[in-house]
């Protein structure tokens, strides 16, 4: 327990350090060896492809003077990658890692010391929009209809999605709280396995990224009722606030973190290098192609954002009974 405490302390110190440099002038540090970007997701998945894109842009445009490579360390719910980055590579300025809501929430759920405070926050690059869909044969035409249905039949309207604690389940909870009703959340192994269940009418609705669902909406099997953002792919889908659902859904963000204990100059260097990525046409094309929403948060604002998200997740974890009491 002692070691965990001290690690937390170091981490917070690093966070404060990163904070203080955010406003300072140009960085004096530059990479002197090969740079590795680590993701906890498998090759070919969204996060890994994003890192590949960033690495490609850096290498091609010589934004970063050394070769940049991508490494995928899967397993143990991302815990392996997190440990590798922030403990085994503590103080290594030549390493970066992807950061997602799962990376933020899982350490809380399993009471691990790899929380966001044990990393050096660099930047938030993009946000995945979230889409509310039902089967096209169902009678529901707006989020309000679903709430009405749940009022008629409490707990009998089923939401499908990834595991408890995923941002889909959190969004469902917030939707419940907004409507003052109760749905039943049915967890599957990721959105991919939940979609056939929605197509086969075994569950009633889903709240997930458009990536896997958009084509089923386009082919007319599923109906999208609302989204957190205006989508280029599905221009007819209204935003939640447009249909009167004013709830704050957790953001499906894609961030970049560095290991704890790197110098303030190095942190600042990576913020600038990522900032340059956003200016390239290749990045703009990538964001458009993958239906991401461009987003940019760094420094103090990023720390504040993580604090806010942490609070939201903590509250939801407690309300959903997911949190184990620390021993």
């Amino acid at each position: 327990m002692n070691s965990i405490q001290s690690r937390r302390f170091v981490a917070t110190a690093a966070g404060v350090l990163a904070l203080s440099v955010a406003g300072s002038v140009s960085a004096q540090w530059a990479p002197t060896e090969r740079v590795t970007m680590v993701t906890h997701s498998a090759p070919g998945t969204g996060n890994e492809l994003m890192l590949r894109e960033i690495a490609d842009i850096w290498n091609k445009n010589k934004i970063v003077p050394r070769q940049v490579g991508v490494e995928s360390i899967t397993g143990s719910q991302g815990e392996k990658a997190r440990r590798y980055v922030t403990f085994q590579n503590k103080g290594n300025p030549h390493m970066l890692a992807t950061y997602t809501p799962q990376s933020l929430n899982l350490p809380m759920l399993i009471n691990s010391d790899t929380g966001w405070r044990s990393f050096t926050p660099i930047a938030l690059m993009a946000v995945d929009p979230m889409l509310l869909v039902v089967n096209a044969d169902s009678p529901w035409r707006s989020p309000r209809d679903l709430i009405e249905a749940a009022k008629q039949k409490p707990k009998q309207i089923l939401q499908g999605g990834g595991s408890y604690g995923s941002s889909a389940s959190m969004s469902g909870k917030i939707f419940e709280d907004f409507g003052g009703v109760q749905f039943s959340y049915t967890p599957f192994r990721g959105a991919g396995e939940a979609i056939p269940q929605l197509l086969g009418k075994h569950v009633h609705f889903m709240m997930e990224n458009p990536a896997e669902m958009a084509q089923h909406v386009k082919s007319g099997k599923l109906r999208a009722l609302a989204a957190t953002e205006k989508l280029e792919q599905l221009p007819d889908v209204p935003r939640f606030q447009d249909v009167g659902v004013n709830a704050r859904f957790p953001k499906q963000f894609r961030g970049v973190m560095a290991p704890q204990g790197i110098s303030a100059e190095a942190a600042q260097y990576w913020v600038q290098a990522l900032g340059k990525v956003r200016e390239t046409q290749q990045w703009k094309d990538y964001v458009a192609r993958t239906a991401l929403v461009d987003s940019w948060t760094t420094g103090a604002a990023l720390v504040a954002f993580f604090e806010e998200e942490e609070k939201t997740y903590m509250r939801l974890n407690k309300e959903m009974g997911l949190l184990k009491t620390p021993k």
Partner: protein
Amino acid sequence: MGDVLPLLMGGFETALQPQNLLFAFIGAILGTVIGVLPGIGPAGALAMLLPIVLNMNPVGAIIMLAALYCGAMYGGSTTSILLNVPGESSSVVTCIDGHQMALQGRAGPALCIAAIGSFIAGTLGVVALMLFAPRIAEWALNFGPPEYFVLMVFGLSSVASLSGGSLVKGLMAMTLGLMISTMGTDVTGVARFTFGVAELLDGIEFLIVTIGLFAVSEVLLNTNELRGGEIRSVIKHRIFISFREIRDSLGAIGRGTVIGFFVGVMPGAGAGIASFLSYSVETQVSKNPERFGHGEIRGVAAPESANNAASAGAMVPMLTLGIPGSGTTAILLLALTALNVHPGPMMFSQHPEVVWGLIAALYVGNVMLLVLNLPMVGLFVRLLYVPMRLMLPVIMVICVVGVYNANQQTLDLIFLCGFGVLGYYMRKNRYPVAPVILGLVLGTRMEEALRQSMIMSQGNPLALLDRPIVVAFLLLTLVFLCAPVILKRLRFRGRKVELETEG
């Protein structure tokens, strides 16, 4: 059918270009080699090749991956038969009769029937994929969590045919497998039996248990025999299969194909379950069920056909819904997505060249494997002439490297040894080890499906019985469990009557 032919021809045109044939050839060879190594199954093989393939042209990449997939699927059977070392879940069942055949000097026919069965099932599977994919995908949507649950229950009933002598010992072994399957993070995100160890969050990987229980225990058993001065007499091995053996196996291959394809279509069910089920069905329909477990050729033909048909079946949800049916198709799907081809309902119209290229590549891959592997049977059988004292260390090294390579965790190696010792004592005391794998493969999915079903019905188990598929599978399970007992009774009574009339 009319509009399918020209598209398929177009696909063949692509697949048969010299460059693409070369890709298919490389894929098939690599796949077979990788499949032979225990520890690296088809999914692992694809994952390893993925970074390389991502820089190739999409069609070539997909052809290579498809051939690799077929190859790895086939390669797994070789070590199962020759060394009793299964490389993946789908070749565990092949060990049971396959290795017995090898011990009796019939390694050649066993390998041949595995190749022929794989070829026929693979080819028929692709035909079914080509003709009925959208319709079958539609049908598979009827499978909700309750249906998955009873499918898994039905799968568990095959423990009866895997237990050999004692059903009680088989059930104990299966329970152990079910217990191991509860380790790790469950579907609701709660970590169970992880003892605060981060490496256990994913549970104990199925691969470690399989290789430990089968391969490491095999090494230990053989070492024991060597030290005891027992020298296994060198058996003259027959290399080629007789026409009669092929004719006898055709029924098993056909049934294996049908079962494999339909189980493969269900996302998440997978080739492992298909092979267990087909073996179980074979023992039920056979006139001589007592021969299974003692080198029955149908016991090799059925599961090997089933796992290849399942891999074709797993393509159905991937191509039509954009949903992977297995770990391997998940990686294939990633490859396609990374190449900017998005499988799903629009794929047949948006990227016909890729779909039909893939289908043609699967045909080509299957033919190539048969042509490559039949002549190799003679070579592979020679492995059995390598003295045990040289062979055992090699097997051990391959196992350790294979397991370590999967996750790069030293803890896995400790588990490997643990399961090796456990397997040794189980086999010494005549406990069957295959049911452990059965429990492990089915357990996680079964529990998940049950919990999902209970959420759906607000905790009312009787609500499951409203669904016709559920009832059908439950009845089938009942038949499978009771049939052997009843048949035995009937036969016994028949004989008794005869005796009486004689007396």
